[in-house]
């Protein structure tokens, strides 16, 4: 490959400068944190209750930092072992059970299943801690349609065969609003106070996206589809993966600041990072892949619950209840044995280890974890450095009142403010049937993408609760002046590796393709990082696909 040498030098320089920047950044945050601790919280935040939580980073770091773990004392065996209890792992387990399998186990590091569809609850409401909705699904996606029908998200089909979605789950109106130019407008595409020339660009952009939505490649498949691997292989479209969405927009002559803000918002919302870090193919996929039609909802309608996708997760989880073992950390996988895969497991509660001899393994864990678990084993053509995971902060904010200064649209499900670092907040009580709720939980989403992911991640791990308050509350004040006194509680949840980002050349590059290949037809992989976009549908299909490979062998 041309320029390989230069890349090496760049990496060496990059590493040193990374360490310096990381040191400066974390140092200053630590210092600020110490001051916060000494001076105490800002007095106007004194009444806000809550904690900073996140996935079990301690257990994760046992792996990363190779901390001592007691040697395994006994050995058990299982026909199929699933590692990871997120949507991919649960979906794989569901499929195995559906096919009549009984000899399988699912190991989960956390004390609960769910992955980033995990959720929380307080006295006011259940609320998401990560993924919070799915759009109505593509009608050809029969596996997913079946699952939704099973769980009564789709209640029946009308005379044209169109799915009828459960009306309690279809997002209640009003759906979206945007605070722009001092006004809450309906819908998130900028409109209020947008000059006519920019409006024209926005319209042109959506015309282009509609064309992509209907476009089919020379192989007769949709150019952009869900799951991603059902998309056309036509080079005409796949070449869009080789440049960034930002460059693509520039090439197409899209210069409107309002439009570019909106597209950055979309990329942050779905991929955790702005358009510059996302491939054009992925950027377009956001607008062009959803083609679902419903009997009782508009195209692009969304389905949601107070606990977000936690609701869907529970449907999967409860179906395979007896097979899930939580608080168990896999710390090594040995593929050298021809008979069995030897999986070493550490029981975090009992603090003991044991070995599982597994016939087959589905690794429904992210690839950066798999890299550690597989130890020295090198997966051919998989470059882990190609995989970028966006860190996220989720804040569940309990308010007893939502003061509004700006005029316009009332509280919606999704509420966004133009030009803010976050992607806004979602009203967790949207599906509530009560005419009036006195208190509300707002789930606020902040993608930590102001710096490169590992730096942002490090900075995020360094911050204490009070420092997150200093970041989040002022933005809320900007949206709702004088809200601070009405905030009763904020629970912060930090995802260090929130989701994979579809960087340039990742979706149709070699690493993603190679990472899907099984190891000796014994270890199979299922995770959204094998798609490059972190959505429920992808996880669901990866789980089924891995389970099908297990059953086929």
């Amino acid at each position: 490959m041309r320029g390989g040498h230069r890349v090496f030098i760049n990496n060496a320089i990059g590493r040193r400068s990374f360490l310096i920047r990381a040191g400066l950044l974390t140092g200053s945050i630590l210092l600020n944190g110490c001051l916060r601790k000494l001076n105490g919280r800002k007095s106007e935040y004194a009444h806000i209750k809550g904690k900073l939580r996140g996935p079990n980073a301690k257990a994760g770091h046992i792996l990363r930092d190779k901390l001592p773990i007691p040697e395994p004392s006994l050995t058990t065996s299982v026909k199929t072992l699933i590692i990871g209890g997120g949507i991919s792992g649960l979906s794989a387990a569901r499929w195995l059970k559906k096919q009549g399998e009984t000899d399988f186990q699912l190991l989960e590091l956390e004390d609960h299943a769910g992955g980033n569809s995990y959720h929380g609850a307080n006295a006011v409401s259940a609320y998401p801690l990560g993924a919070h909705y799915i759009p109505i699904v593509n009608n050809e996606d029969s596996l997913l349609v079946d699952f939704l029908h099973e769980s009564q998200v789709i209640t029946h089909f009308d005379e044209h065969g169109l799915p009828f979605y459960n009306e309690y789950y279809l997002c209640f109106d009003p759906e979206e609003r945007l605070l722009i130019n001092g006004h809450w407008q309906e819908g998130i595409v900028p409109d209020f106070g947008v000059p006519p020339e920019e409006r024209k660009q926005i319209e042109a952009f959506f015309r282009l996206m509609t064309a992509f939505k209907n476009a089919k490649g020379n192989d007769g498949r949709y150019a952009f589809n869900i799951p991603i691997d059902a998309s056309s292989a036509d080079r005409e479209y796949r070449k869009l993966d080789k440049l960034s969405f930002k460059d693509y927009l520039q090439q197409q002559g899209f210069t409107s600041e309002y439009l570019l803000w909106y597209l950055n918002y979309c990329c942050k919302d779905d991929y955790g990072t702005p358009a510059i870090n996302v491939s054009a193919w992925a950027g377009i996929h956001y607008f062009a892949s959803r083609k679902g039609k419903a009997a009782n909802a508009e195209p692009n309608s969304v389905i949601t619950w107070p606990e977000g996708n936690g609701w869907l997760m529970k449907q999967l989880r409860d179906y395979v209840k007896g097979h899930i073992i939580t608080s168990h950390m896999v710390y090594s996988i040995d593929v050298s044995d021809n008979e069995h895969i030897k999986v070493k497991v550490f029981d975090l509660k009992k603090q003991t280890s044991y070995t599982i001899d597994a016939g087959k393994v589905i690794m429904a864990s992210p690839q950066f974890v798999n890299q550690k678990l597989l130890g020295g084993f090198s997966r051919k053509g998989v470059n882990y450095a190609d995989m970028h995971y966006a860190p996220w902060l989720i804040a569940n904010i309990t308010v007893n009142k939502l003061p509004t200064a700006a005029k316009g649209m009332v509280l919606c499900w999704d509420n966004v403010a133009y030009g803010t670092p976050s992607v806004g907040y979602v009203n967790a009580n949207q599906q509530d049937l009560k005419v009036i709720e006195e208190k509300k939980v707002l789930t606020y989403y902040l993608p930590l993408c102001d710096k490169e992911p590992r730096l942002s991640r490090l900075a995020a791990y360094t911050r204490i609760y009070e420092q997150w308050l200093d970041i989040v509350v002022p933005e809320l004040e900007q949206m709702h002046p004088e809200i601070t006194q009405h905030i009763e509680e904020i629970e912060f949840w930090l995802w260090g590796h929130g989701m994979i980002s579809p960087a340039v050349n990742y979706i149709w590059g070699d690493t993603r393709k190679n990472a899907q290949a099984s190891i000796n037809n014994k270890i199979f992989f299922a995770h959204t990082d094998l798609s490059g976009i972190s959505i429920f549908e992808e996880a669901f299909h990866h789980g089924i696909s891995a389970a099908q490979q297990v059953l086929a062998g």
Partner: protein
Amino acid sequence: MNKKLPILLLISVFIIATCGLIYELISGTLASYLLGDSVTQFSTIIGVYLFSMGVGSWVSKYFDKNLLSWFIRIEILVGLVGGTSSSILFMVFESVSSFRIVLYGLISFTGILVGLEIPLLMRILKDRFEFKDLVSKVFTFDYIGALIASLVFPLVLIPYMGLVRTAYLFGMLNVLVALVACIVFGHEIKGVKYLKSASIISLLALLAGFIFAERITSFSESLTYSDTIIFSKSTPYQRIIITKKGRDLRLFLNGNLQFSSVDEYRYHEAIIHPVLGALPQAKNVLVMGGGDGLAVREILKYPQIQTVTLVDLDKEMTKLFRSNEMLLKLNKRSLLSPKVTVVNADAFSWARMQRKTYDAIIIDFPDPSNYSVGKLYTNTFYNIVKHLLNPDGIMVVQSTSPFVAPKSYWTVEKTLQSAGLHTVPYHNYVPSFGEWGYIMAMYKPVYKVPDTYLPGLRFVSKSCLEQMLFFPKDMARVPASVNRLNNQILVKYFEEEWSTVL
């Protein structure tokens, strides 16, 4: 002995007189606002007040020593009692049975104190000035003050300041007289410091009341209502306002008119009798919304009705219509009937939990002016309510104006039809609302106009109902779609159509 009366003294007399009459006027006005029947209220108030003044004058002879300091104390007390009287009366109005006691208690107390003022003052001054001159001047200023008060009160004070603020203002003037007396006669009074500080504190307290009077009955609010506000309360769910002008009593929820006592029978007869008139066997009725008990009043006119279940969100609202004498008169104590069960709950969640069915269901919610109330007009809601309706039963929905908001009105019909019900739209004219619409919905495909009606109805009759079922061209059915939780088109139509009128 021959000193001329100082002007300050005469001003004080003038103020005392004005204040005394103002308190009387405030009490009279409040009583007639709140209790109605102004002739009775004014004459009893004036009678009790004058009598109490007489009691005060008589009691004055028992004050022997320290007349000056007693006078100052009384001034402060009059200021405090009079100044806060209208706030107190507004606040206790909700529980009317005790209201009269408080009202007459306050009047008597104020009257006694005011009755003490002039005799005490004259005794204080009798040795300092010529008695002939004193009597003439004091009474002259007393009556001038009364004249000024009676002119200023209706022409200036009530329209520009409102009852509550006026009371505080005159309370302050009373206390001011006390303060001035403290300063002028300071050397003659024992413990003048204590009296001075008491009057300053009272003055500040009344000033605070004057400034925060808005909180009691907001001045701006009274400007938005053309009639006098006699009751206002913010509950967790809504702002309840009752206004009164002559015999017209009006209820507003969040600023929207719910009924006018003058013509509400047209509305409530129209929503009840086409339904119950067609259901001679009906025993159990469900009412959703309608916490004023007026629909229930109409329902209870049918002797065969055994139970009425009323579901209204707001506890304060049903409490008010179960305790306030004036409102009880209006709803004929319907909510106190042993046949009636009041449930304070959110209708949607409540309906989802029910298994019992009803012969008639009356849906009388506020208009779909926001997304929260809009949920109660969706196909999902009607699908739930449908299961609470007996196979032969009829439900009816108040559905806004087919004249002003035809799209909204026919959307409600379409939404009811989407739940698999047959609909019968009808309308009538309610002067305070305009042309108003209702929709009956039922399982059975045919609705037959009843031949007989209860005796004593003022509006509904066979020929009247036949007319109500006819829609002239300017209100004819327009194409509509189904109002769903995930589109809430009704809220958008409603806002669009009414904004062109208002």
